[in-house]
């Protein structure tokens, strides 16, 4: 893998390679370039997980012609697909090296920080929602109970924007969550459930279920569960499978039946 990266950088196949490097015992994203080729030996693959494609998007926004190499897992691949669809990255400018993801019967070993999500405690199970819950278990609760449980989870929010900042498919220049008319500023918890519902709506047809938001959330709001359910709705209603579908989501363009030409008057 390291020799491949070196070869790519030397040949100019890519200008920059985004991988991980351990600095002061912390494995963090690092950009490897041709000018510092020996550094590639320090490239590491471990359970640490960051939205590398998000970094690539930022680079591409600044330098549209840059050819970028990436270390990808399955979730990164899905995120890349979404970013290609929404014209945030150019498919021809991205080179990927696939590394280990979740374990399966064929490959026993897995590298992912999210393999063992935190277990919910007794109180959370009693009044809130278990992050490891199946979406079908969620429907087993009645409407009222579900509202209470979601509100318990949402009320914990400290509005750190961690879920948005870590999200690999959040690329908007202006964010609705920062708009003072939509989400009132200077209040904790933020306007619940509006804050979380706004994000949930925006995740429809976008979220690739990587779980980074839930991983980043300091108060353990089951965000992955929420967005997973949201995308189940998108799949059920619009038959759109987020992350693998080749077209933009059903919310991106005007409806099929709408044309912008004035309709001719019917002959009398």
């Amino acid at each position, binding site marked *: 893998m390291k020799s491949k990266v070196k070869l790519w950088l030397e040949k100019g196949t890519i200008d920059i390679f985004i991988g991980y490097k351990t600095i002061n015992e912390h494995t963090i994203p690092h950009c490897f370039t041709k000018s510092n080729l020996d550094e590639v030996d320090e490239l590491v693959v471990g359970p640490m997980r960051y939205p590398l494609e998000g970094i690539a998007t930022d680079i591409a926004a600044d330098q549209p012609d840059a050819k970028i190499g990436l270390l990808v897992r399955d979730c990164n691949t899905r995120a890349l697909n979404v970013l290609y669809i929404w014209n945030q990255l150019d498919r021809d400018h991205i080179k990927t090296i696939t590394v280990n993801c979740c374990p399966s019967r064929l490959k026993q070993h897995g590298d992912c920080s999210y393999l063992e999500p935190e277990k919910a405690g007794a109180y959370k199970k009693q009044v*809130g929602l278990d992050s490891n819950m199946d979406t079908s278990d969620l429907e087993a609760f009645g409407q009222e109970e579900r*509202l209470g449980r979601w*509100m318990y989870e949402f009320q914990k929010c400290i509005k750190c924007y961690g879920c948005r900042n870590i999200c690999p498919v959040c690329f908007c220049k202006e964010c609705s969550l920062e708009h003072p008319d939509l989400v009132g500023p200077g209040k904790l918890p933020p306007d619940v459930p509006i804050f979380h519902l706004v994000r949930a709506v925006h995740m429809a047809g976008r979220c690739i279920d990587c779980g980074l938001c839930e991983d980043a959330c300091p108060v353990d709001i089951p965000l992955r569960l929420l967005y997973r*359910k949201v995308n189940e709705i998108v799949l059920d209603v619009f038959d759109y499978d987020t992350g693998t579908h080749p077209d933009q989501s059903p*919310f991106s363009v005007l409806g099929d039946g709408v044309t912008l030409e004035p309709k001719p008057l019917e002959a009398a």
Partner: protein
Amino acid sequence: MTIKRMTFLQELLKLIGLGGRLHLSWISSAEAQKYVQVVTDFTEKIRTLGPNPLPLLAKNSKMGRIPEQDWDKGINAALKKTSNTNRLAKCA
């Protein structure tokens, strides 16, 4: 587009537990009868669902958040303790 978003939003509200409180209808200005029918039906539906449960829930201390007065109590108690041992003065 509207119908797509509304259908999605109706499902999302159902997931959160506020289902049935959003309705979409296309009514022309010439369809007074239809307008009356839709509004009457929807009003009746909302009446059976009852008032919006969100404000009540926000007041409920079971939401896992300690009510503000309790916060104050806790802080006051802590302040009293620290003033007894004069820790604040030491810190300053």
